[in-house]
């Protein structure tokens, strides 16, 4: 049995991740890092739920935030109801409510959207997303207008095991627990008949019809289930921030989850996890370092689309295959050789971008900025000196990268040829 959900190796891996997730806040005591970890946990679930559509069923959605947002709003209202009237539910179980809400939204909206696949689906999802987002501002009673709906997650008495979920660390524990459950469930789903047929529908919808499957039904079911997990993620957001606003379900949120999932890699189950972690950290770290972070972000995304459309996970997977084939060793010197010119190129580009921002965007990249320390000292941007230097570095980097990169590529191609030769 090679594909059981819980064979020994996998059990160890899952357990290891769970333990690591619980251990992290013990190592990093900073409140900010715990907050960051909470955000990552939520995004992991959200991105994985998105990949149920994009990676597994081949549905490119531009409106996935709708399910996330609806899960969040319903949770928040539920939280407020519990806070006011009490009730059988406790905070810890609310993600289930949010998930069901997301699922219900999937049942209703998915009926319309999944009639089509491909480009048409992408557009319908965009339209539905815009529709719901616009409605959000129109019905302030439910969506709370531009101020959103807020609540207090410390409600009820005698919460599960005495946790109040007030402190961020307790909330983190709750998020890890739910994220873990959702991840296991989503992974298990890939190992079921529906999960596999979703892959089949993605690869070749026509053929899927001719082996007896209604592709529309497969897409619909996948969307509903994806809505369930997106709803859980939204619910966790609601509990974590104790406020939900209409932007939770707008196009921007849909875009972010798409970016995360794609950058991480849609072809692998763990791809979106990598993406969620990477993008969350990037947003905060790079976002904190430079005003140009959105530009870097956009460039990075385009670079990924053009150079590594399989995402980071596919890059890792290829390295792993090389390693297993014993070919990784012979690539290492090439990687190292190409790293230097790439760094030079990057330094030049970063220099140019940062100087442009300093000059044009007004907000100087003032003294003490870590990002400008690369370039040291004060630069006179109104003189050609720094610009020529940066241009020179960029050009040198470019030439070197092309030169050495050519060799690396040749080595890479030969390694891949050997790899595939071995296999076929």
């Amino acid at each position, binding site marked *: *049995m090679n594909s059981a959900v819980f064979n020994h190796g996998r059990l160890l891996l899952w357990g290891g991740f769970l333990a690591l997730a619980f251990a992290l806040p013990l190592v990093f005591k900073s409140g900010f890092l715990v907050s960051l970890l909470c955000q990552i946990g939520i995004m992991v679930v959200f991105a994985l739920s998105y990949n149920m559509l994009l990676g597994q069923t081949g549905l490119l959605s531009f409106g996935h935030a709708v399910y996330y947002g609806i899960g969040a709003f319903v949770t928040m209202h539920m939280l407020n109801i519990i806070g006011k009237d009490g009730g059988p539910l406790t905070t810890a179980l609310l993600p289930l409510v949010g998930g069901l809400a997301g699922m219900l939204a999937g049942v209703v909206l998915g009926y319309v959207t999944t009639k089509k696949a491909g480009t048409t689906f992408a557009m319908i999802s965009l339209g539905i997303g815009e529709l719901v987002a616009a409605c959000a501002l129109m019905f302030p009673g439910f969506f709370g207008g531009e101020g959103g709906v807020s609540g207090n997650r410390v409600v009820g008495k005698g919460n599960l095991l005495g946790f109040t979920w007030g402190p961020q660390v307790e909330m983190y524990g709750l998020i890890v627990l739910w994220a873990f459950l959702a991840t296991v469930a989503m992974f298990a789903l890939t190992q079921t*008949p529906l999960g596999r*047929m979703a*892959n089949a529908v*993605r690869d070749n919808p026509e053929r899927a019809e001719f*082996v*007896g499957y209604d592709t529309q039904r497969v897409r619909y079911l996948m969307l509903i289930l994806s809505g369930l997990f997106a709803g859980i993620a939204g619910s966790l957001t609601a509990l974590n921030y104790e406020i939900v606003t209409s932007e939770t379900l707008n196009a921007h949120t849909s875009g972010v989850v798409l970016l995360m999932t794609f950058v991480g890699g849609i072809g692998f189950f763990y791809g979106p996890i990598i993406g969620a972690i990477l993008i969350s950290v990037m947003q905060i770290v790079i976002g904190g370092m430079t005003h140009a972070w959105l530009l870097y972000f956009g460039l990075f995304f385009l670079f990924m689309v053009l150079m590594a459309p399989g995402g980071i996970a596919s890059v890792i997977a290829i390295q792993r295959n090389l390693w297993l084939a014993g070919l990784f060793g012979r690539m290492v010197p090439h990687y190292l050789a190409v790293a230097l010119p790439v760094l030079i190129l990057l330094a030049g580009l970063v220099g140019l971008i940062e100087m442009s921002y300093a000059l044009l965007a007004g907000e100087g990249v003032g003294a003490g900025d870590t990002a400008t320390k690369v370039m040291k000292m004060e630069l006179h941007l109104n003189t050609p000196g720094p610009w020529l230097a940066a241009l020179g570095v960029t050009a040198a980097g470019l030439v070197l990268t092309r030169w050495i990169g050519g060799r690396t590529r040749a080595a890479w191609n030969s390694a891949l040829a050997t790899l*595939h030769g071995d296999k076929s």
Partner: protein
Amino acid sequence: MSSPAIRITGLKKNFGASEIIRGVDLDIHRGERHAIIGPNGAGKSTLFHLISARLPVSAGVIELKGENVVGLKPFEINRKGLSRSFQITNIFHNLSVFENLRCAVLWSLGYRYSFWQRLAGLADARLRAEAVMEDIGLAKRRDTPAGILSYAEQRALEIGITIASGADVILLDEPTAGMSRSETDDAVALIRRVTEGKTLVMVEHDMGVVFGLADRISVLVYGQIIATDAPAAIRCNAAVQEAYLGTSLNHD
């Protein structure tokens, strides 16, 4: 066993103004191997597409085992026990050979859209897929993604997917197209083996394959069946010769 496997009456298909299928009547008996031949552009593939509901019918009736199936969706017809292959390889490229076959058997084993059962736990699906894999000679390629198989292997897989569900009416659209001689021989043997006891309808250009496999042959010319008969009779049918060799033969 009264009704034929497939009964086609008055079938027509237009693409805009041009009529591609112009009133086809045809009975396919249960258990026979039936080949449809005809010159290029005669409408053979279109006929297949109509039977399998890939294209909508313009007029006429198609009965599958006595039941009118016009207007049904492809998957509905498939569930009634008709399975088809494609002239242009039509497989799940990113899935492994094994997964391709397993996908093909899931519905017929009643797993439908289940998301509460583990695939790995479905022994019958695994056994059936493995059996087909063995049949089509791809056991050693079990975990290879279908997209990187060789052409002949993909054709074999195409047939494998078609027969895996256990459908009793099999439509094969040029199963040996583009194969070398030896590959064709293997394919013929394969088809013969896997369609044992089933109804087979095939479109084929390779006359060696046709005459080696078929119990009966229909000749489709310009959207009409001009003859349906046993191979030997078809061979010396004047109308067929005219259609294939041109009118000059008539003057002999």
